[in-house]
């Protein structure tokens, strides 16, 4: 069907906010550090291949859970620390959004039990969102929407225990994944924010866990319910979509690149981030890219995880304008320009301490 380009432009999924703001961000990662060089021989990789992957992808080490901890456990730890750090009680939150691909159960929604575990009252709302690497932006926009619509505070919990959905011997994906759960508090406060969203289901098979839901297809027959990645497709998708998304959100947010203090992108691998950074002509210091090398791919927690892991001092002590961009499984991608002002942002917690 022919579509008028101007009409299509007007129908874009874009949101602006003026009265919602991030109060704090806390991230908890898995307690077990896995060195890539140590696990690589078990994946059948030679020393030369290890060196290649370390150079090309930035693989070095990652943090995963050592036991049966779930994403909601990591998020609960982060949320408790967040509320404590902000001097708030759970009763002061009216909503909880849980963004994950690794819920406690297929049903019921994990957000509801997580809200109860944290002490949110029964008069609060809680729901799950099933998204991966774009999930933080989507969750943040939903939290902003709820706050602008009347709620005082919303807890956004994002993350995955991705180590549980990969074949530990699959060298294409296992050494990439880290486990993390972040909690972000959004509250009503004057602050400007702009969001844009994109979805393309034609790339459904680029990243997929087959046989993990109700649909059964002949091509999935006999495949384990573990994450399968078509790396080449994901690479192409990223380089095709992310630079233009960044250009578009800058335009929509009426910001010049120089006005952005930090470009905090999802952290799939170092090469892709460096490529985007150079193509967009962004200074090295403005676009952190070490999360993959230290924590692994944290999926929906990678943006808050990068703030907790590498930018906590600046986010704690300064007023900042940041551009966030998440992209991946779906295919789904989204970007936001958000202002923060001296938020509670301690350094990453390793393991659950209570």
């Amino acid at each position, binding site marked *: 069907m022919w579509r008028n380009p101007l009409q299509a432009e007007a129908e874009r999924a874009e949101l602006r906010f003026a009265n919602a703001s991030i109060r704090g961000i806390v991230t908890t990662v898995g307690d077990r550090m896995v060195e890539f060089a140590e696990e690589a021989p078990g994946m059948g990789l030679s020393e030369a291949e290890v*060196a290649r992957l370390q*150079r090309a*992808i930035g693989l070095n080490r990652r943090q995963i859970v050592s036991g049966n901890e779930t994403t909601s456990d990591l998020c609960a730890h982060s949320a408790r620390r967040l509320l404590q750090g902000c001097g708030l009680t759970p009763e002061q939150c009216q909503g909880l959004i849980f963004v994950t691909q690794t819920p406690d159960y297929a049903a019921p929604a994990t957000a509801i039990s997580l809200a109860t575990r944290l002490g949110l009252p029964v008069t609060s709302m809680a729901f799950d969102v099933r998204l991966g690497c774009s999930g933080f932006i989507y969750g943040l926009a939903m939290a902003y929407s709820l706050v602008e619509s009347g709620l005082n505070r919303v807890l956004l919990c994002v993350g995955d225990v991705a180590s549980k959905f990969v074949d530990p011997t699959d060298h294409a994906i296992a050494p990439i994944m880290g486990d993390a759960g972040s909690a972000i508090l959004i509250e009503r406060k004057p602050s400007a924010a702009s969001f844009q969203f994109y979805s393309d289901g034609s790339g459904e098979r680029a990243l997929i866990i087959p046989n993990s839901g109700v649909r059964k297809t002949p091509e999935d027959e006999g495949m384990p319910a573990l994450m399968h990645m078509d790396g080449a497709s994901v690479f192409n998708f990223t380089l095709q979509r992310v630079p233009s998304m960044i250009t578009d959100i800058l335009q929509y947010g009426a910001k010049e690149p120089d006005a952005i203090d930090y470009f905090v992108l999802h952290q799939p691998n170092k090469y892709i981030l460096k490529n985007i950074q150079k193509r967009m002509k962004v200074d090295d210091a403005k676009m952190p890219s070490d999360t993959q090398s230290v924590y692994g791919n944290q999926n929906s927690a990678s943006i808050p995880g990068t703030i907790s892991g590498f930018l906590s001092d600046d986010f704690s002590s300064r007023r900042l304008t940041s551009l966030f961009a998440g992209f991946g499984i779906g295919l789904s991608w989204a970007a936001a320009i958000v202002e923060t002002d001296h938020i509670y942002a301690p350094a990453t917690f390793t393991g659950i301490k209570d």
Partner: protein
Amino acid sequence: MLDVARIAGEALMSVLENVETDTPVELNDAANIFDAVDSFAIVDLLLETEGRIEQEIGRYVPLADETIFDAEKTPLKNWSTWVDYVEKSIAS
């Protein structure tokens, strides 16, 4: 004048030192690198070539775009196309 063919060729040879291929890669204008090596080796080739160009001209030239891993459009299906692609990337 920058000898892009030499730089690209040296980068490829450096990468191939650490890559096992089913059949040896012979470097000629028609060489199909895309089908000869895996995706990690292609990323390695991008990195190696970018690094050598940066050393020669003093600035970073990003070589990866959405065509690199596209089986239909990739410039790596043909060595002379790849050299042209690198030259154009440097010029742009």
